[in-house]
């Protein structure tokens, strides 16, 4: 689960870069970059969740 989350994160980065190349107006660029950051945040949340489950199962 942690690896799945970490794999999602670069997708968010590439989405943000695509915004720069695809759009010239400020508003769609900002929206696209925010979407990219949201994807990264989701990936991070999944990774953190994966860590929590892992650490809970290893508790003494």
């Amino acid at each position, binding site marked *: 689960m*942690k690896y799945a989350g*970490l*794999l999602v*994160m*670069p*997708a*968010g*980065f*590439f989405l*943000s*870069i695509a915004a*720069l*190349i695809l759009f010239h107006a*400020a508003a769609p*660029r*900002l929206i696209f*970059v*925010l979407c*990219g*950051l949201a*994807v*990264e945040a989701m*990936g*991070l949340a999944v990774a*953190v969740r994966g*860590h*929590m489950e892992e*650490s*809970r199962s*290893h*508790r*003494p």
Partner: protein
Amino acid sequence: MTTGAISPMTDSVFALTLALLLLAPLAIAGLALVNTGLGRSRAAAQSILGSLGIVAVAAIVFAAVGAAFTGSPEGARHSFLLAGKSWSWLGAGPWLLGGLNSDSPQNQLMLLFEFLAVALTAMIPWGSGAERLRLTSGCAATALLSALFFPLIAHWTWGGGWLKQLGANFGLGAGFLDGGGAAAVHLLGGLSALTVVWIAGPRKGKFPKEGLATAMPGHNAVFVLFGCFLALAGWMAWNVAGAVLWLHAPSSALAGTAVNTLLSASAALVASFAVTRIRFGKPDASICANSWMAGLVASSACAGLILPDAALLVGLVAGLITPLLIELLELAFSLDDPLGSIAVHAGGGLWGILAVGIFAPQTGQLLAQLLGIAALLGLTLPLIYLLFRLLDCVLPFRVNAEGERIGVDLHELGSSAYPEFVIHSDDSRQ
């Protein structure tokens, strides 16, 4: 491979910046003291020796490899063309600091700044692994950071890389701005700290099967708070030097940069004092110290670019979010970060980078800052985790069970920091 050009520096500005950079190691010393004081007495000697070792390894590896990958704004670099624009992704400087003496004075100062920055970056994950991270593993992780990750981010932000070029290539303000290293130092260090905490796991007894996390308070509040004073002196010098080197600030803006640094830290401390007073009935020294550091970290990105009232606001927000983040990471996310490195450096760094976009007058600056955050979070964190995970297979990050039982000072160094004192009974039992 392409090159860029910047305007030369006068002798007086060179002398001032050099003097400031000679004061900047106080920030490193301050952080080392804070890290040592916030850990338990059983790990004090390993913590401070590790800090020194990490500075040494970072300097050697950066001189050998990292400086070449970092490059300089007017030096050679590796670029590719995409959508008709040049994207510089890595520096292509000489190996082993070749040609340093014949380089321009400004480039020499930039290199000195980067040497200090890489040392500070590497000390952040060392702090998060306190009391269970092995000295050799900490040094190996430092070598990776200094050879690969720091040069990559430093080139993007300071060496004329694609993040810095966002202004010229895409009209996004002045490109990504980071005068004092909120991104290349603190956010990168904070993300590395997160991966170290993930890989090394919590300290023994930190998270019992039932109930809340066990409190493991630091052993020396005086170290922690004196470290905050040292850090202030170093940070003021650091931010002013950064403003000269990376933001090309005029001399009229330099005193303001130092004042903004102080205001940001002060507002963070006052906010945290109030939050912990309300939350626990009494102000908490370690959380207040962490908030002070978070205020300094947040000021790293923006002190040279904003007005004093905005600096107060930046510090206030840093002081409010730091105690909440520390509690959230420990209690909700089961992350054992003994020194609050993730909250202070990743949290404070993120907020500082964002604050530049919010308070800077140029249009498009916010977008440039958001892209910088996206690059660091989306690309660097998975890469650091992957390489640190591989490193952990070769050189295990965590000390063995016996080492953790007797404490890393005795286990790794053969003697404790305070040999005349009896080890606390609670420590020896865990």
